[in-house]
Every structure is written in C-alpha cells, then in structure tokens.
C-alpha cells in the first residue's frame, strides 16, 4: 500500500528530535492559548506565525498544527475548573464538566477529556490516512442547500438540550437568534439592529457573551451562596475511575464519528460537532436526566468530537486546499506564507512533506496526552484557592480576555452585562445552551439559505432537487411533529411510532 509506505517514511521523519521538539513546543503553546479566554486558536495561531518563519516548511507546519489542536484541548481546562470556556468550542464542556468539578470530580473530567481527545484525534487521523481524497471530494457535494438543512437540523437538537422546561428552551433559542441578527446583513452589508453603535457592526461578539453567560454568571451565583471555595466538594480523584472510563467508551466512540464526519464539511466550525455529539449522547443514554448535572459521558463526547473534528478538518485542507473554519484558514495562510500551498497537487508535489505532517498529527495527539494527563492533578489543585481570591482572579482573567479580543472596552461591558443576565437566567432555571447554539447556528443558517436562493434564482424548489438536503430537513419536521403530537403516556406507543 503506497500510502502506508509513505506514512512510515513520514513517521521516521516526524519522530526525529527536531520535529518532536517542534510538536512539543506547539502543543504547549497551543494549550496555553486555549487556556487563556478570549485568545482563541485563530488569533493565537496568527500571532505565532512569525515564530515559524525561521523554521523549515515541514517544521513550521508541524508546530502550527500542534498549536491548533493543543488549543482545542486547552480550552477544556478553564471550562471544567471555572466554567469559563477557553475558546468557543469548549462551551459544551462547561455544561457537565464544571458540574463534575463541583462534585469533586474535576480530575475525572479533565482526565477523560484528555483520553477522549487522544482517541478521537488518533482515530480521525487514521481515517484521514485511509480516505482523505475520496471523502474530501464527496464532501464538496455538500453545497449551501445541504449546509442550510444541516444547520436547521442542528438547531432542532435544541430539543435535546431542553431539560425539563421545553418552553424556556425554545424561548432561549429565539433570543439567541435575535442576538445573532445584530450586526451587518451578511448579504447586503447594511447594518442591522446596531442602533448606530459602531462596535455592534461586527455583531454582539460571541466570546464576550459566552464568557459572561457562563463564567461571570457562575461567579455571581457562587458569591451569592457565599462559597468558601470555587468548588466546595473535596477533590476525589485525579483521574477517572475504571468505572467512569467504561461508562464513557460509547460516548467516545460516537463523539469520534460525529466529529470526524462534520470535520470533513467545510464551514461547519468547531462548536457544531461538540453540541451534536453531546445531544446525541443524551438521546441514546438510558439516564438522560444526569446530563447537565455532571454526566461524564457529556464531557467525553464533547471533547472527543472536538478533537476528532480538529484532526478531520485537516482533510479538506490537505486534500483540497479548502479551510473548514476561520482557525484553519489562519493555518492555511501560515502554510502559504511558508511557501506551501495546500491542495491536491501537494500530495503529488511534496509527498514527503505531507506524510511527515500527517505522521506528526499522530505524534502530536500522543504528546498532548502525555503532557496533559499528569498535569490534571496540578490544574485541579487550583480549585483549592479560597474563593475570594479565585473570584477576583477569574474576573480579572475574563476582563483581560474580553478586552484582548479587539482592544475594546465595549466587549468587556457586553460580557459583564451578559454575566448579570446569565445569573438571572440561572436563577429562573432557564437553560442557556439553546441560546448559544442559536447564536452560532443562526448566522450560518441565514447565510447559507440566502446563498442557496441566490443559486436557485429565488426558488425554494431547489430543496426538492437535492435528496441530502431534503433528508436533513426531514429531521426538524419529525422533531416538531413529535413535540406537538407527543401523547401523555409514551410507553404503549413507543414501538411502531412514526419516528
């Protein structure tokens, strides 16, 4: 097998001391970037590009890729410990991860995240080796119409995040969509709902909103309860127990598949796979009520999907030269500046380079695991700091993060404002996750629908011509039908139902 031969050669190169060192440095820097809120992987990678100018092309790519998925893991740490998502994709981990920390199981949460990330990333890279080119071409068939259908189906997953109060979840979804409208019309460029406030031209700012709704709100709640520590419970363990690992196996498996498949589709972004994996896990679980209260499967599925996505997203980049997300676009820019143009000819022109890079993905995943597992205990110890210091520290951390995004105090005010809002919502027992999902999916849904209609010349009939899109659109129809016609007692109707 030609590919295998190339891959082995790639390993030989990737395991050289020089490249190992680059991968290690990349992983460390990436994790740090992920931990710092506000400094997302895109910005962090962009800042570190000059660092790679003095390296040879292969070394540069290895380091930059390591930074990228290191950052994916780094965001988990703050999500679990202080309920502040280090980067956008870590939002879902906050939901169950922080609850686990509150129960003294921070070690388990971080540990299973590291393990799940490793498994997801490695399996995704294996799949990359085997099916890169054919899958990539197939993924291209996924056009704006299918994308729109996927987004709508994704939004309907909100039902899975609803918990007890469906009305509240739907209300939050609508609020999320309304917030998403603020900014500039994606097609016409005209400002919308900005009320003349210049800072709103770019939209409300996803990161400040999320940091506020999750992080600041958590601080306010804890302060209200006069907690002595961020997390009251004693730290039970530094690692997940064998039982917890066994529990998570299914979650990790499903997370890998979801993350990988979605990573192939350009434009999806890292948050969507994590949400979808989480909701899928909740749906198939026999005890869904544990989700949101510290279910380890919640963390495992989200984190695995996250890393599987990050590695799979390399497929469209390497095979077709099409970046899947803004962060990957930065990565691609870095490649180009270093003289490498990703695309199908890259495999033919410079096979050694490509396969060395792919080999280094494997190496990087292992390095991340080795780096992070032992550190879990160290991170978890941070929770022992008395709450008064922690609270002040986290708040400063968040303010710097929010300000650092665009050097704008406006973002800080947004964060604080949403922090108060988040506090109120939590008191009222309104679920926040649906609003976040809507805030992310809304703009993508709108843009892809309008592009679809531009392609079809304004006719909705285009959906009828496209079976994949039609199938995906059937999901919300089924979901809505189920909601409307759900009989009081499900048991006798469970089999033979229209679902």
């Amino acid at each position: 097998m030609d590919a295998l031969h190339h891959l082995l050669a790639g390993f030989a190169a990737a395991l050289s001391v020089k490249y190992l060192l680059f991968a290690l440095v990349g992983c460390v820097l990436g994790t740090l970037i992920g931990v710092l809120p506000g400094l997302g992987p895109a910005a962090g990678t962009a800042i570190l590009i000059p660092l790679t100018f003095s390296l040879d092309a292969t070394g540069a790519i290895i380091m930059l890729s390591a930074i990228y998925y290191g950052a994916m893991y780094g965001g988990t740490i703050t999500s679990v410990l202080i309920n502040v998502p280090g980067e956008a994709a870590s939002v879902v981990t906050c939901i169950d991860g922080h609850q686990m920390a509150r129960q003294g199981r921070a070690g388990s949460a971080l540990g299973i995240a590291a393990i799940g990330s490793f498994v997801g990333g490695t399996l995704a890279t294996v799949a990359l080796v085997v099916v890169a080119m054919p899958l990539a071409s197939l993924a291209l068939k996924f056009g704006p119409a299918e994308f729109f259908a996927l987004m709508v189906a994704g939004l309907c997953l909100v039902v899975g995040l609803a918990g007890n109060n469906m009305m509240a979840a739907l209300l939050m979804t609508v609020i999320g969509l309304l917030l998403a409208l603020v900014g500039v019309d994606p097609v016409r460029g005209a400002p919308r709902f900005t009320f003349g406030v210049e800072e709103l031209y770019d939209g409300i700012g996803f990161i400040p909103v999320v940091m506020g709704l999750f992080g600041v709100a958590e601080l306010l709640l804890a302060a209200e309860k006069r907690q002595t520590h961020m997390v009251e419970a004693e730290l039970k363990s530094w690692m997940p127990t064998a039982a917890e690992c066994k529990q998570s196996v299914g979650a990790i498996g499903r997370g890998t598949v979801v993350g990988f498949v979605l990573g192939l589709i350009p434009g999806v972004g890292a948050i969507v796979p994590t949400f979808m994996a989480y909701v899928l896990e909740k749906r198939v679980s026999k005890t869904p009520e544990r989700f949101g209260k510290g279910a380890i499967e919640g963390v495992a599925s989200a984190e695995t999907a996250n890393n599987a996505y990050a590695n799979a997203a390399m497929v469209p980049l390497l095979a077709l030269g099409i970046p899947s997300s803004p962060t990957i676009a930065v990565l691609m820019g870095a490649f180009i500046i270093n003289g490498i143009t990703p695309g199908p000819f890259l495999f033919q022109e410079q096979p050694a380079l490509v396969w060395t890079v792919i080999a280094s993905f494997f190496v990087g995943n292992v390095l991340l695991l080795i780096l992070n597992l032992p550190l879990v205990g160290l991170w978890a110890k941070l929770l022992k700091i008395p709450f008064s210091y922690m609270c002040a520290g986290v708040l400063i951390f968040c303010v710097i993060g929010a300000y650092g995004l665009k050097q704008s105090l406006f973002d800080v005010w947004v964060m604080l404002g949403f922090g108060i809002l988040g506090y109120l919502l939590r008191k009222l027992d309104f679920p926040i996750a649906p609003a976040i999902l809507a805030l992310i999916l809304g703009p993508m849904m709108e843009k892809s629908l309008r592009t679809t209609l531009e392609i079809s010349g304004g006719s909705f009939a285009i959906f009828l011509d496209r079976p994949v899109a039609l199938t995906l659109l059937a999901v919300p129809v089924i979901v809505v039908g189920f909601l409307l016609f759900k009989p009081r007692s499900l048991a006798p109707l469970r089999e033979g139902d229209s679902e």
Partner: protein
Amino acid sequence: MFIRRRTLLAASAAITVASPAIAQNYPRRAVQLVVAFAPGGSTDIGARILAAAAEKDLGQPITVVNKAGAGGQIGFTEVARAKPDGYTLGFLNLPAVNTIILDPERKAMFNVDSFIPIINQVLDPGLIWVKGDSPYKTLADLIDAARKAPGTLSACTTGILSDDHLAILMVQEAAKVEFRIVHFDSGTQQLAGVLGGHVDVAFDNVGSVFKRVQSGEVRGLAITDSERSKFLPDVPTTKDLGYGTVISSSTRGVGAPKGTPADIVKVIETAFLKAIKSPEMLQKMDAVGLALKPMVGAEYARYYADTQAQAKKYTEWALKQR
C-alpha cells in the same frame, strides 16, 4: 499681555521647528497595519509579507491586525477613525473602499477623503475560471451558453460589490448577457462552490487560484486586464478576446487616516517603497501569485480617484438591480 505675545511667538516657533523633528522621531514604537479581511486570505498574506519586509526599513515592528467583517467596512472604518499620528496604518483594498462608500445602505462612516493613499503594493487582476472538467472551454463558450439561457448560469463572487461583482456587471454589459449572481465570502468558498458543482463560473483574482489553474484543477477562461498575467501566460485577456472594456482588478496598498502629517507619510512611503522594490519581496510575492505594482504619491492618488469613478458607474447599476 506682553508676556503672552512672546509666549505665543515662542510656541509657534517651537511648533514650526518641531514638525520635522516630530517626523525624525517617528517611528518610536510599533506601528499597526490594519487589514480589513480575514487572516489567511490573499489580502492578508500580501499584507503580512509586506509588513515583515518593511519592518526592517522602518526600524520598528509593524504588527498586522485583522479587523474583518462587512466586506472590509469594519477594518476601513477603524483606520478612518484612528489617530492620525502615523502609528495606525490601513491596508486599503480598492475597489472595496470605493463601493462601500458608494452604497448608501452600508452607511459608511468614511468617504474618499478619509484616507491618504500612500503606496500601492499589489495589483491582482481579475480571473474568470471554471472547473477543470467544465464544458466551457473558452470565454466564448460561456457567453454563448449564457445567451441561450439568460439568468440561469450562476456566477459567484467573493462579496457583494467586490471587484468580482463589478467584473460580472462589466461582462454583462459588454456581452449583453445575464448571469445569476451568487455572493460568497472568500475565494475558498468559491472553490468549494464551483468544484462541488453548485455554481457554474467564478469571478475571482489571479492570486487566489493561480496554482490550481497551473495544475489544471480549474480552467482559467479570461483575465480581466489589458495585459496577460506572468503567472498564467496562457490565459487570454478580455482585451485579447474582444471585450476591452472589461478591466477589473483588486489593488491593495497602504494608507493612513486623513490628517497624518506629510513628513510622516513620507517616511512611511520611503520605507515601504524600499521593501516593495527588494528582491526578497518579489520572490515571496511570486510564490503566492501576487503581482507587484508599486504606485506612490500623485500616481496612486490618481489611481484612487479613477477607481472611484469607475466603481461609481457599476455600483449604481448594481444598486438599481436590487
């Protein structure tokens, strides 16, 4: 009163003497170059290469800051409102700046006079391309097909009122055809759209896809310029094909907010010109398919005004079609 007049005299003397001194003291810290488009794109890459090269000549670090959004409007607004002290420069994309100003719906907070165009770096000519295995082998094929089915052939751009959009309008005018216009946000989205078979033809620029044209993955039908591109010598120009009025390209250069002192502008111009003329710059830009066309001073100012006039005509036409 006597004292006040003397103080006033001394103060004005000091300021007059200080002006060149101010320029001599510039730059004393890092300079920001605001790029109005996302990192990793053609504009950003050109800007980063330029910044890295000009740093040495300017004597201070030049940090590239990306402020993408609204087709460049966010970044351009930022530059227009920055302090005119020479420490915030903008990477100006023409005709993006022009069309934003000309579209009343965009409510641009800047106008033609908000910027001092200092030096142009890149002139990236427009390129009309289709999939490698597309049935359209020449521009004539495409135009024929478009005539037979008006308003059905889809053509994509990298943004509404971008140079690509204006190029489509120029072709529609010159060849008397009508396309279905689809707006994407970037060259890579266009790739996904055309290669995936969702859109028939893409109007983009040479820098974004030249490697793919060279490899045969996509087919270049025409370059919307009066001379052929050195990167794609086999692709005919619109002038070659008889559509000499279809001239469209994306130019990118460095500008400063209105009010930046003339001597500081001169320092910037000298440093960047040196960088652009250096052999390493040429080498790096050749590798990424971006053609250098340095323009300074009056020449650039004239180009700026000309682009505004040309953009006006087609923008108004585009707005009428809304």
